[in-house]
């Protein structure tokens, strides 16, 4: 609930005008609907009374019938405007939400980033964001507009009919709908959350089955895994039924309220009319308004159905939303000087020591290979040097302590090619310009040649050749080399490469490594390596 509010506040802060426009029109549509039905009921009954009294000729038909037409057409027009404006507001809210997620995630630690990019995690994240998309359109607008319409109807009924009718109608809807909202609002989140968990379990077990099918078959666990999928689905089914039941209860209460409140309103009105305190036509207004208010209450059901899921999603998404932070990129003029560390200690996630009192220095123009068994800490060391992993000890870049570097200055001076690099979908040129937006075509071709990709890109139609999501359309080795070319385009003074030639055959690896050195003759290059070609290309080798 708290997170839901904070997400709402964030959307409200960034898209205030759009939200107000949508909210006001939602209210206008409701009020016009209520007025239309109330007026028509009054008009017919009053006309009948005048007709019975033989005073039909003196009855002013034109103003009411013109009002009926105006409200009918006006409501249709307002409805159109409402749909457009609320959808515009929703789309803006979608933007805010997604941008917030992106900003927040970009500030995460690398190990959390690695978790986020897994297919399952991404799936869950988008499911959560989708659930929150309805926050404004299905929860906030209808409930807010419905409540206001109810209050205005109360005032209108008091003024036009009688306080007793107004109290019955407005009080009836309030005392019926508010406890319903409160009760189901408390009841729904738990089964919603549990159903979401069961659905995720179902999904992840099914993916596990498909990904590990051979292993499961060999070790005789395929049927067990199949059974565990069905078990998760059975749990999901039970919770779905529970939620469906609550949804039906909400629907039944709302329809019953409509019958009781409009019937009761009619009875009170007729009673007052018989006593001569109001006319029969005024009594009809109370009935028709109570009936029309059902439209204001109807979205409550839909809102309640989604509410639990939204609370659950907000709990996961809310804390990670990043606020808008405009980082100014500043050029840095540091003396050329490579990278070094002294007395460096790295911890494992479990708490044990991975590296203790480690020293290393890579000078400008030098390529150093870092070797060691997998799990020895090569990747973690590179991340620490890139300022993305906490380390104890002294790291100096161009002679300045790492802590003294601002993020933009550091990224300008130092670049790292991570072990699993990813491309964005788009063209080759767009991917490369991510590294340097003002790069000229000549510079782009130069780094492509250095990465032995010139021929490949030319064969595919040049720099505008498209790359699909997750580097679809490129082989693993080509994607790797493109990521490498992208890193080279930044022309860093310090380049950290994590297994740069993974997926390349031996001769290509050697040529690519030569290309890197030629492209950046002045840079200090540190390579975490497990291949002979990489070790052979280095000036020095340091074993962890």
């Amino acid at each position: 609930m708290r997170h839901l509010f904070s997400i709402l506040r964030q959307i409200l802060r960034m898209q205030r005008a759009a939200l107000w426009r949508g909210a006001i029109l939602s209210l206008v549509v409701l009020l016009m609907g209520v007025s239309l039905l109330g007026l028509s009921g009054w008009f017919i009954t009053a006309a009948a009374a005048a007709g019975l009294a033989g005073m039909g000729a003196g009855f002013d038909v034109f103003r009411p019938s013109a009002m009926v037409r105006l409200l009918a057409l006006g409501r249709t027009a307002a409805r159109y405007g409402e749909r457009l404006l609320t959808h515009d507001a929703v789309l803006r809210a979608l933007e805010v939400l997604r941008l917030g997620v992106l900003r927040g995630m970009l500030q995460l630690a690398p190990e959390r980033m690695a978790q986020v990019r897994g297919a399952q995690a991404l799936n869950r994240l988008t499911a959560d964001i989708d659930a929150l998309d309805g926050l404004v359109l299905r929860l906030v607008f209808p409930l807010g507009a419905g409540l206001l319409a109810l209050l205005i109807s109360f005032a209108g009924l008091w003024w036009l009919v009688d306080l007793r009718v107004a109290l019955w109608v407005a009080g009836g809807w309030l005392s019926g709908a508010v406890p319903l909202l409160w009760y189901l609002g408390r009841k729904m989140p738990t089964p919603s959350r549990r159903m979401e968990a069961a659905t995720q379990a179902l999904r992840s077990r099914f993916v596990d089955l498909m990904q590990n099918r051979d292993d499961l078959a060999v070790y005789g666990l395929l049927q067990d895994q199949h059974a565990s999928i069905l078990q998760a689905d059975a749990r999901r089914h039970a919770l779905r039924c529970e939620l469906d039941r609550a949804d039906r209860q909400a629907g039944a209460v709302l329809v019953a309220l409509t019958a009781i409140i409009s019937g009761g309103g009619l009875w009170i009105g007729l009673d007052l009319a018989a006593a001569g305190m109001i006319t029969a036509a005024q009594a009809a207004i109370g009935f028709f308004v109570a009936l029309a208010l059902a439209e204001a209450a109807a979205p409550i059901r839909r809102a309640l159905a989604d509410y639990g899921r939204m609370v659950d999603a907000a709990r996961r998404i809310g804390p990670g939303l990043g606020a808008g932070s405009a980082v100014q990129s500043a050029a840095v003029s540091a003396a050329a000087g490579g990278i070094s560390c002294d007395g460096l200690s790295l911890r494992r996630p479990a708490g044990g020591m991975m590296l203790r009192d480690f020293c290393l220095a890579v000078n400008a123009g030098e390529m150093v290979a870092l070797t060691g068994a997998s799990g020895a800490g090569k990747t973690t060391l590179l991340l620490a040097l890139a300022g993305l992993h906490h380390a104890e000890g002294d790291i100096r870049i161009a002679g300045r302590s790492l802590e003294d570097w601002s993020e933009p200055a550091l990224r300008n001076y130092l670049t790292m090619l991570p072990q699993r690099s990813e491309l964005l979908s788009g063209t080759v040129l767009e991917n490369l310009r991510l590294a340097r937006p003002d790069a000229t075509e000549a510079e782009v071709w130069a780094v492509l040649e250095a990465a032995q990709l010139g021929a490949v890109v030319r064969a595919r139609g040049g720099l505008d050749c498209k790359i699909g999501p997750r580097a679809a359309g490129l082989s693993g080795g080509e994607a790797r080399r493109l990521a490498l070319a992208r890193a080279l385009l930044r022309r860093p003074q310090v380049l950290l490469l994590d297994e740069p030639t993974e997926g390349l055959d031996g001769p290509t690896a050697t040529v690519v490594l030569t290309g890197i050195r030629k492209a950046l003759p002045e840079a200090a290059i540190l390579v975490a390596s497990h291949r002979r070609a990489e070790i052979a290309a280095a000036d020095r080798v340091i074993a962890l």
Partner: protein
Amino acid sequence: MAKSDPLRLLLAPVAPAMRRLSAVAVLGSLIWPVQAALVALAIGAALQGQVAGGLVAGFVVLGLGRVALSALADRMAQEAAEVVITGIRHRIVAQEALRAQRDTGPGATASLAVEKLAALSPWITRYAPASARVAVVPLVILVLAFWQSWAAGLIFLISGPLIPLFMALVGMAAKEASARQMVEIGSLNDLLVDRLAALLDIRLLGASEAVTQGFSAQAGDLRQRTMAVLRLAFLSSTVLELFAAIGVAMMAVFVGFSLLGQLGFGTWGVPLTPAAGVFLLLLAPEFYQPLRDLAAAWHDKAAADAVADELADWQAREGLTLPGNGARVDPLAGPATIGLRGCVTAHGLHLPDMKIAKGEAVALVGPSGSGKTSALRLMAGLELSAAGNVEVAGQVLTAPMVDGWRARIGWMPQRAAFLARSLHFNLALGRNGDADAALKAAAAQQVAEALPRGLATRLGESGGGLSGGEARRMTLARALFSNPDLILADEPTADLDDTTAQAVTAGLLAQHAKGSTLIIATHDMDLAARMDRIIQLGNTR
């Protein structure tokens, strides 16, 4: 209507329930005209100065009856939706469990079976009852209107032939609405997912701000294009509402003028009574309501159509079935020997004949695509040969015995994958054995200790990650866990650094030294040289 066929097919298992629920939904809607009549009579009586409390009470009681019927219809619809969705889901899971080939995108199949199928629910619960109501309710109201006044009936009748026009408009709106959904949510999510997958790269390239600004600009652009589509899409449903509004307004004006005595026509001789007037007014919106409900639910049908299409694609994907059923059974008796005779892989590759004796260590070598992996899969009974036969433990391997044969194998796949369960579960996979000994034999003790919660660490995406080399050692530990007398290993040292490769090789050879038969498929000639025998693949015919 050809488009609706696959959808109708999906409903086949619940067809009787759908008919019942449609009937209940229609019955519920038909209560309204009765309620309207009671209110009309009560207001008519009030004009005569009487309070007809009984009529009002009847209105409320019937309203509660409507509550019961609509709740019943909702329940039947929700239950039918669950039956349909679970039925299809279970069919997908069962079929995928026994597919023999490795598939490239389990994510797509999982989304279909889990999230996308759920899109059938609104179609079943909203669209189906709405289309039943639209066939009956307007017709009944038309008859009632004619009974009261032929002019009132005529107002409905004139808008009656407009209904097909409405439907066409609604259809157009639906097309745009589904296009809208595709544009709107899909693209924005794709954009986001694309960037989230590359978070670390973006950060390291110092492109965080540029990427967020670019995303914001693209999202804004997408919003503008979506709104352009929506302005049109909403127009069609607005036209529908406009016709309904005009119909209701015409009815109100006709009734009003008739009651004032200013219109002398439209009734069957006698003038329109006040009660009849109120009755007609109350009926008018309900005449158009089913159509509007159907229009609102049309979007659900479009979504269901998309699911049905994708389901048809999934069904069209052919594939081999995994032999056996992958359950745990008693191991097959007999010596751990394997013979291949005249075998052909699923890709049509001929494999050389071979005979591997108990306790032998053999390397299968050959260029990529020469059938090394397929040979191992045939030996493990994960595929059956299209021709020739595989002989294991002295008998020809057939589908009924593969489970028993597989129960003897230590298996090291080329690509390590784990269940999203604890490391211990992933090692043992339900078998008896010694985890510490297996980890030690695979030189993986340190790896396990380094994990946040040791053997209890949850693997998979959400848990502790293992590097490639660590994962490889874990699959070795898993293969050695139950001390098998046959080990099949596919590229056990590919992409490993020398130290790890040595450790893995030593682990395999140590198990061989205990008397196990060892068969590896490899590119690594150093590793192959340490086996008893090398079998060359890829130069047969």
